[in-house]
C-alpha cells in the first residue's frame, strides 16, 4: 500500500516535470490560435527550447552567482509541494499534507523572489519588489482559502478528505472560489505577471539568467504553474474521489485530467486580458479576497 502511495506520488512529480513544458506548448498553441497565428509547430516545442538552452554554456553574470541556490530551491520546493497532493492515494505527507503544501508553495514563491533580488540587477529588483507585494497579499489569501476548503470537508487534510471527508457544498464552493483566484494569481500569468513584465521595466528573475540556468528558471516557472493548476484540480477532484470512489490509478488520471483542464482555462483567461499595474492589482485582489474570505468563514461558522 505505502509503496503504491509513494510510487504514485513520485509519478505525479515525474509527470509534472515531463508534462509542464508540453502544457506550456499547449498554452502557446492556444494563444497563437486566439491571435490568428499558427504557433509552435509541435507539442514538444517548449521542450526543444529548454533542451537548446541546456546545451549552451553556463554564463554567470557578475554578482549573479547568488541566484543559483534560490533557483534550485524554487524547483525543489515546487516539487515537494506537489507531493502533498493526493494522486488518488493518500499523499506520503498526509495527514500533515496541507501544512506541507502551504509551506512548500510559500517557499517556492519566496525563493523565486530571492532569485530576483540576489541577481543584483535593477530591473530584477523592481520585478522582485512587485512580485513580493503581490505574493504577500496572495499567500495570506491562499492560506485562508486552503484552510476554508479543508474546513468545509471536515478534515484538515486533502488526503483525508478524499477518503472520509464530509463535504458541506455551499462553504466548499465559496472557499473554492477564493482558492482558485489565489491560485490563478500565483500562476504568474497576465494580468498578474508583474514580476516578469519586460515591457514594463521589470524583468524579475529571468533577466540575469542565460543558457542552462535560464532553462532551470523556465522549468521553475512552469512547475509553479503546474502546482497552481494541480492544487485547483485537487480541490475539484476531492469530492469526486470521495463520492464516486475514484481512487488509485483512476484518481491519478482524474487529477491529471483536471490539472490539464485548469491549465487550459488559465491560459484562455491570460490570453484575453491585459497586464495590471501592481497597486491596481493589489487593490483589486484585496477587494475580492476580503468579502470572499468573510463569506466563507461566516458560512463555516454558522454551519451552513
Amino acid at each position, binding site marked *: 500500500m505505502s509503496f503504491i502511495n509513494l510510487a504514485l506520488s513520485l509519478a505525479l512529480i515525474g509527470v509534472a516535470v515531463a508534462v509542464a513544458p508540453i502544457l506550456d506548448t499547449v498554452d502557446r498553441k492556444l*494563444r497563437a490560435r*486566439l*491571435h*490568428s*497565428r499558427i504557433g509552435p509547430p509541435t507539442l514538444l516545442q517548449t521542450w526543444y527550447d529548454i533542451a537548446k538552452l541546456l546545451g549552451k554554456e553556463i554564463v554567470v553574470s557578475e554578482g549573479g552567482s547568488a541566484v543559483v541556490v534560490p533557483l534550485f530551491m524554487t524547483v525543489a520546493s515546487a516539487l515537494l509541494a506537489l507531493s502533498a497532493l493526493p494522486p488518488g492515494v493518500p499523499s506520503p505527507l498526509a495527514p500533515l499534507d496541507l501544512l506541507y503544501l502551504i509551506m512548500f508553495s510559500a517557499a517556492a514563491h519566496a525563493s523565486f523572489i530571492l532569485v530576483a533580488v540576489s541577481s*543584483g*540587477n*535593477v*530591473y530584477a*529588483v*523592481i520585478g522582485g519588489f*512587485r512580485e513580493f507585494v503581490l505574493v504577500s497579499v496572495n499567500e495570506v489569501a491562499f492560506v485562508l482559502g486552503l484552510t476554508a476548503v479543508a474546513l468545509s470537508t471536515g478534515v484538515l487534510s486533502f488526503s483525508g478528505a478524499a477518503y472520509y471527508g464530509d463535504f458541506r457544498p455551499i462553504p466548499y464552493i465559496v472557499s473554492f472560489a477564493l482558492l482558485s483566484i489565489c491560485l490563478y494569481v500565483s500562476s504568474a500569468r*497576465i*494580468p498578474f*505577471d*508583474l514580476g516578469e*513584465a*519586460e*515591457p*514594463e*521595466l*521589470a524583468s524579475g528573475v529571468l533577466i540575469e539568467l542565460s543558457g542552462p540556468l535560464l532553462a532551470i528558471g523556465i522549468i521553475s516557472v512552469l512547475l509553479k504553474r503546474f502546482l497552481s493548476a494541480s492544487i485547483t484540480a485537487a480541490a475539484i477532484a476531492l469530492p469526486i474521489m470521495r463520492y464516486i470512489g475514484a481512487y488509485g490509478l483512476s484518481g491519478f488520471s482524474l487529477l491529471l485530467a483536471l490539472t490539464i483542464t485548469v491549465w487550459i482555462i488559465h491560459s484562455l483567461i491570460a*490570453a*484575453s*486580458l*491585459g*497586464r*495590471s*499595474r*501592481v*497597486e*491596481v492589482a493589489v487593490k483589486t485582489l484585496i477587494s475580492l479576497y476580503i468579502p470572499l474570505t468573510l463569506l466563507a468563514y461566516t458560512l463555516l461558522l454558522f454551519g451552513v
Partner: protein
Amino acid sequence: MNQHKDLLPQRLRPLESLIQEWRWIDKGRAVMLDVKRDKLVEVARILYKEIGAFFKTCAGVDERPLWGGFAVYHIFGIDEEGLDVVIYVKIPEKDHPWVPSIVREVPAADWCELEFRDMLGIDPRGRLTQRLVLPDDWPEDVKPLRKDVPYGYRPPRAEESRPVEAGMYPSGVPVGPYHPALHEPEYFELYVEGEEVVDVRYRGFHVHRGIEKLAESPRFDYNKVTFLAERICGICGFVHSCAYVMAVERAGKVEVPERAEYIRALLLEVERLHSHLLWLGVAAHLLGYDAGFMHAWRVREKTMILAEYLTGSRKTYGMNLVGGVRKDITPEKVPKILRVLEEVAEGTKKVADMIVSVPQVRKRLEGTGVLRRGDAAALSVVGPVARASGLNRDIRKDYPYLAYKDVSFMVPVYSEGDNLSRTLVRVEEVFESVEIIKQLLDRMPPGDILNEEWDIEPGKYAVTSVEAPRGEDTHFLITGVGRPYRWRVRAPTYANIPALRPMLRGQELADAPITIASIDPCFSCTDRMLVIDVRTGKRSVLVTRPKVRVVSLG
C-alpha cells in the same frame, strides 16, 4: 515706405521697423525676413509671443562659398494663416561665427541651436551650451556641416570610452539604449520613488546618420536625395520623401501634374493607416495584451500589402521623383483598393473595440500620461499628441498641400490629454484616412504623373510641412547646383519629446513605457537631429528618497 513693404502680411506688421528687407519665397507660401543680429531676439519674441506663431525649427548654413559668411534661418509658422515665416540672419565672421540665442524667448529653439553649434560651429550666445549631436570622441575642430569638411570624413576612433556619469545621479532606472520596451536605441533615465516617477532624463542621437550632410555630397542629385529622404524613417518614410520633393518643386518652380499630387496624398494616407495600426498594436503589447497586438498587426498587414500593390514595396515605396510619381494607379487597381479599405475599416473597428474593452488596458490608458492643454501649447507639440490635448492642429487643414484641399475630412480632437485620448485620436484618424483615400480615388484627375522637364535655379528657398502620422514634419531647403545646397529636416517626434516630462512626472513606473510610446516616438527620424533635456539642475533636488540604485548606466 516702398511698395514692397505695403504687401507685408497684416500679421507681421509689428515687425516692420525691426527688419531690413523682406520677400516672398516658396511660391508665396512663406515670407523671408532679413534681420540684423542685434534685432533677432526682439523679432523672435514678438513673432512667438505677440503674433502667436509656432516655432518650427532653425537651420545653420555655411554660406561662405556664396558670400563669405555663415547664416542662421529660424523658421516659424502662423497656423491660422497657413504662412511660414523664415528669419534670415547673416553672420559675417568666417572664423568664430555667433548669433544671439533666442532660447529665452522661444524655448522650443533650444535643441536646434545646439545642433548648429555642433554641426557648424555657430555659437548661440547667451545660453548654456553643451555638445549633443556629435559623439564624445568627435574632434573639437571639425564641424561636419561646413562645406570644407568632406562628406566622407571619418574621425580617428577613440581608444578609451568615457566613464559613465553614475556618480552624478543618485538614483534612477536606466531605460535603454537597448531595452525591450524601446524599439530603437534611446536612453531614458527615470527617477523613481518607490513606483512613482519623479523625473525623467533623455538622451538620444545613438543613431545619428549624417543624412543632411550626405545629401549635399557630390554623389547625390535632386532625384537621388528623394530615396535618401525616404530612409530617414522606417515607418513614415514617404512623409519625408514627399516633404523633400515638395520642397524642391516649390523652390525650383517645378510643375507637378495634379494626378501625381493625388497619388502622393493617397499614399500618405495609406502610410498613416499602417502607422496608426502599428502603434495600436504596440500600445496593446506594452499593456500586456498581446492578442490586441497580433490582431492590430493582422489588420495592418492588409495596408502593407496594399502599399506594395500600389508602389512595389511594403515600405520605402520609392514612388517619388522631383516632378511627380513613378507608378500610376490604374483603374483596374481601384476595386481592390476599395475592398482592402473596407476590410481595414471593419477590422480596425473590431480590434480597437476589443482592445479598449479589456479592463486592464482601459484602466491603464485612462487618466495616465496626462498632458494638459496649456503645456501642450507652450511646448508646440504636434500631431495626435496635440490633438489629444485639445489643440486643433493639423497641417493637412492648416497648410493644405497636395490634394488635401480637395477632400473633406474631420480632425478628431480630444481634451483629456491622457493616453486614452491619444489612442482614440489615432483610431479615429484611421477611419478618416479610409474616407480620404476613397474621396481621392473618386476625384483623381486623369493625365500625366511625372514631369521630367525641369531645371532648378540655385539659391531658392522652400519650407514644406507634411502631416506625418506623428505630427508635423518640416523640411527646409535651399537649392544648389544639381543638388540641394542645404536641406534641413525636423521630424515630428522632435517636437513631442519635451512633452514627455510633464506626462511622466508623478506617474506609476509601470505606465512609463506606454506613456513614452503614446507620443508614437520615432527616434531614428529625430536622431538625424538632436534632442535632449537640458533642464537637469532640478534632478537631485527632486529625488529625495532613492529606493533603487543605479547599477550601471550602460
